């Protein structure tokens, strides 16, 4: 693909969506999920929370992989100032879907890129607005019986059956999926992690 990394890249996330997204860039990377405490802190706003958790995830891995670029991310859904994390059970998933039904909510993703050997750390928060159409009771029951809502913030997957409910997205689609690719690439570029070698067919060919 012509994209080269200055040092190995590690995705510190257990989310298969994030892995899938990062693969789209054609980069070589390793996945090392890290468990972090996801309890809310008092008076913590959603932006601070996603940045904190994203950095925590990256930090745990970075301490033992100081030379690598380590990327961590965290996503939450926010409606009426309330942050929705991952639903614990079907009733919780049902309550979340009822809140989102027929309205617009915000999806916050925070990501952190660390390379401790270079004392490098950046964090960014990206938002997108998602509008749901009305969800009927049958649709809700059908959806919460599927496995889909349970490992996802706000109890839906934009790239899965959840697409059923989505009328409109303002902002980055990949952000709603869990990793804002455009901003992540920007951060990698700004950090000097990525270089763009010209495709082999272009240019003048071998010298001589």
């Amino acid at each position, binding site marked *: 693909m012509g994209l080269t990394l200055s040092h190995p890249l590690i995705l510190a996330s257990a989310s298969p969506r994030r892995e899938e997204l990062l693969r789209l860039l054609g980069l070589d990377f390793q996945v090392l999920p890290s468990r972090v405490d996801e309890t809310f802190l008092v008076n913590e706003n959603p932006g601070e929370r996603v940045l*904190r958790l994203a950095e925590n995830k990256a*930090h745990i891995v*970075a*301490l033992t992989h*100081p030379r690598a670029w380590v990327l961590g991310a965290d996503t939450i859904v926010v409606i009426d100032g309330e942050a929705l994390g991952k639903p614990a059970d079907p009733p919780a998933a049902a309550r979340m879907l009822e809140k989102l039904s027929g309205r617009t909510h915000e999806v916050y993703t925070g990501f952190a890129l660390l390379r401790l*050997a270079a*004392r490098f750390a950046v964090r960014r928060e990206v938002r997108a607005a998602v509008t749901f159409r009305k969800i009927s009771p049958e649709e809700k029951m059908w959806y919460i019986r599927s496995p889909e809502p349970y490992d996802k913030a706000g109890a839906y997957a934009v790239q899965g059956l959840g697409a059923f409910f989505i009328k409109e997205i303002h902002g980055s689609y990949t952000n709603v999926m869990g990793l804002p690719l455009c901003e992540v690439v920007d951060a990698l570029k700004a950090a000097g992690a990525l270089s763009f070698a010209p495709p082999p067919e272009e240019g003048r060919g071998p010298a001589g």
Partner: protein
Amino acid sequence: MNDAAIMDNIARIRERIARAAAGAGRRPEDVRLMAVAKTVDDERIAAAIAAGVDIIGENYVQEAKRKIESMGRPCQWHLIGHLQTNKAKHAARLFDMIHSVDRLEVARELDRRAAGAGRIVPILIEVNVSGETTKRGVSREEALNLTREIAPLERLSIRGLMTMAPWFDDPEAARPYFASLRILRDRIAAADIPGVHMEELSMGMSGDFEAAVAEGATIVRIGRSLFGERPPR
């Protein structure tokens, strides 16, 4: 261990600090050497002071109180051990700096006691970078908030951060922990909180101080390499 051996050790440690500092493009004089004097008797402490350590570090308030009363203050005395609220009164009076502030309530008590003693006490915020439950210190993520909360206390002056890295066979393995504290220090400094100074990084001990100096330590805390193994208490 006799005085000559202590002087020798200090000279060797200074040399290693200088080499690590030079390797990182820093000046050796920007790193202060603390002799950690827990359970060390007055005579050997006096030898260390004579040999030119910058700071004596103590773990226990009572022990420090006794020593300071008998030896006076030929150099700075810092508290590096855990501070309990009920020891804040003496601590506020005794120490030139307290490295181990990690809770608001202890800071408040220290502030109150410092006012009583007519002093402004320089403090560091102790951070638990590794997240190990056996370690004291505020978590990395709460350090900025704690700093904001302590900053308005007029009798305390926040000067920087302190941490203890986990123990490793390979001292280089501790280095990312020091880098992490420095990143945190820079972030707190960038928050520009009135009254908060972030010039000190107290990190690095006998086993890992060179890695700490390479990552920006301004105070290294040396016990074992300076005074030898401690006798069992």
